[in-house]
């Protein structure tokens, strides 16, 4: 994504310290992560201490402080998926990718995250790759799914 778009977002909130979270949400949405230099720009433009920007950015799950891999692998750990065996899916993804929750591999192929219910509980347990849902997942099927993502 272009630097221009990020700068555009930052400009919109210049001089408005109260809009810190708005600005970060928008940048995250566009860029999928919050680079350090961008957070410095946000701090300067919105007139908030850099430490505060960092604090907000690191606390909330919506924000990512590291670049994401080419593909985002998400295992739902919501209650229905949990009751229907999400733990086994997690174990399998972790075994196949060697990643723990929140990590990205060295070749930036996958970022792996567990997280909240995405509203498709009826087809849980679920694996979600780049926003595409794979419902009624079993550990055996995961390898074939991940193979499609290089």
């Amino acid at each position, binding site marked *: 994504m272009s630097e221009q778009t990020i700068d555009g977002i930052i400009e919109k909130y210049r001089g408005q310290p109260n809009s810190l*979270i708005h600005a970060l949400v928008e940048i995250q949405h566009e860029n999928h992560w919050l680079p350090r230099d961008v957070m410095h720009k946000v701090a300067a433009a919105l007139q908030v201490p850099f430490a505060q920007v960092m604090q*907000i950015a690191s606390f909330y799950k*919506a*924000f990512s402080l590291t670049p994401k891999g080419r593909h985002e692998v998400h295992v739902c750990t919501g209650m229905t998926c*949990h*009751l229907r065996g999400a733990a086994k899916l997690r174990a399998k993804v972790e075994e196949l990718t060697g990643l723990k929750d929140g990590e990205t591999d060295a070749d930036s192929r996958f970022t792996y995250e567990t997280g909240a219910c995405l509203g*498709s509980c009826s*087809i849980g347990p679920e694996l979600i790759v780049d926003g595409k849902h*794979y419902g009624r997942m079993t550990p055996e099927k995961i390898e074939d799914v991940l193979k499609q993502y290089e």
Partner: protein
Amino acid sequence: MPKLQSAAELEKYRAEILARRDPAKPCIAVCVGAACDGMDSAAVAAAFVAEGGKLGDKIEVRTTGCHGYCEKGPNVVVTPGDICYFEVQPTDVPEIIAATLKGEVVERLVYKDPNTGAKAVHMNEVPFYKHQTRLLIGDNPKIDPMRIDDYLAVGGYAALVKALTEMTPEQVLDEVKKANLRGRGGGGFPAGSKWETTRNAPEKTKYVIVNGHEGESAAFMDRAMLTGNPHKILEGLIIGAYAIGAQKGFMYTRHDMPLLEKHVRNALAQAKEYGLLGQNILGSGFDFECELHFDVGIFVSGESSALMRSIEGNAPEPRPKYIRTSVNGIWDKPSNLNNVETWANVPQIISKGAEWFTSIGSEKSKGTKLISLSGNVVNSGVVEVPMGTPLRTLVFDIGGGVRDGKILKAIHFGGAMGGSIPADLIDSPLDFDGMSKLGAPIGAGGLLLMDEDTDMVEVARYLMDFLVNESCGKCVPCREGMQQMLHLLTNITRGEGKPGDLERLEDLIEVTGVASLCALGKTSGDPLKSMFRYFKPEYESRISGGSAGK
């Protein structure tokens, strides 16, 4: 589209839409709601568009939000006749189109009873649907959420017209009060009195807000409504703003649902284009704007004061309860917050009247309730029934009972701040007060079935783990109390529980409940309380025996 300048113009436009539509022309509604989408209903929809396109104008294909029966997606409904096809694959498409054109039915794709083999073709014969009263979700198959005209075609914005042209704000407020509409977001608080408090607050600037956060685990009905029929919620909000005297509204929802975001953004833009938002709505002199806002991925952002802090651009930390958001909300202005489903009820109350509304439901809980039915249930999905419906109807008649022929052990309501009741309370009615007394408050409406293999200690541990991660961490009792409870529960699940652990847990529930600032901490021990009330022997035997019991 030129702005609609008056109620008459809107009604004229509606008549034009209806005149252009031929009710006899077959329409194929493909669900692309969250669950069907996960079963690749987009490919099914694409196949219908491609095949249907070859026929010129003989058939209409519509992509829609959640139909309800998510378990059996991808779902397709063909009108006229509301013929339901389940688990449709792209390869089935030519056959469905051919049959539809001939007025026939593809028998192999209709509902078949798993026990008797009896078939059900039409929606009102399918067991999952026929025991429901689908006042709110029922329009979903008729609406492409990206097209405001579809909403107008089913009578959308007629309630707004009525409110603006035939009623004073006081009369609208009065109707909602008389309807005894209770908040659907968890508390069951009367919406009318909340509206009145904000209306009567002296400040001129007032806000109205839709709580579409839906962070409760395994609750998905609010997102099904908001994604599938965003204009219904918006219409309710505009009517509420008129009654309350608010000039500005906010829709607050999840940042992680791209389709929801797309539909809501589009709905707001279309409403503005048509003159249903903005200055001088339909020539009534009433001005109202609405903005979309996103959460930051933490459950407590759904709590009223935290949500308002979040809209202000601050960290979503709850404020003490003595600050009433109805009077001191966003930027300290009077702000009225209601849940998605609460707002969705407003248009029909205005159109059909309080008397009609109060004829549905139980004595103290009126209207219908949307339920997200999931867990170890045969038929998972979004269900809508009158308040007061026995849980048995939900679980067995609609839900089809427990999966894999297992036995029902418990019913859990209300997510991490709710509770579990044993199977023998299955005849209890779905009712705000009744369920709270049993220790399983309806909450937002997530109902989970748990089968005989469910480890109730693990359920409590899981829920506590969820809350520990979702607390904002502002107050010590919540942070520390929950950590300690989690620690003890984890030990018990590992077979390392010690005598006295249950008493310590009881103390911690008490202290955390009393000393936490917001309802997250205050009710964090509620699931555990219900466990001690109904499933204590299981906990005791885990401590003395160690192994997981049934």
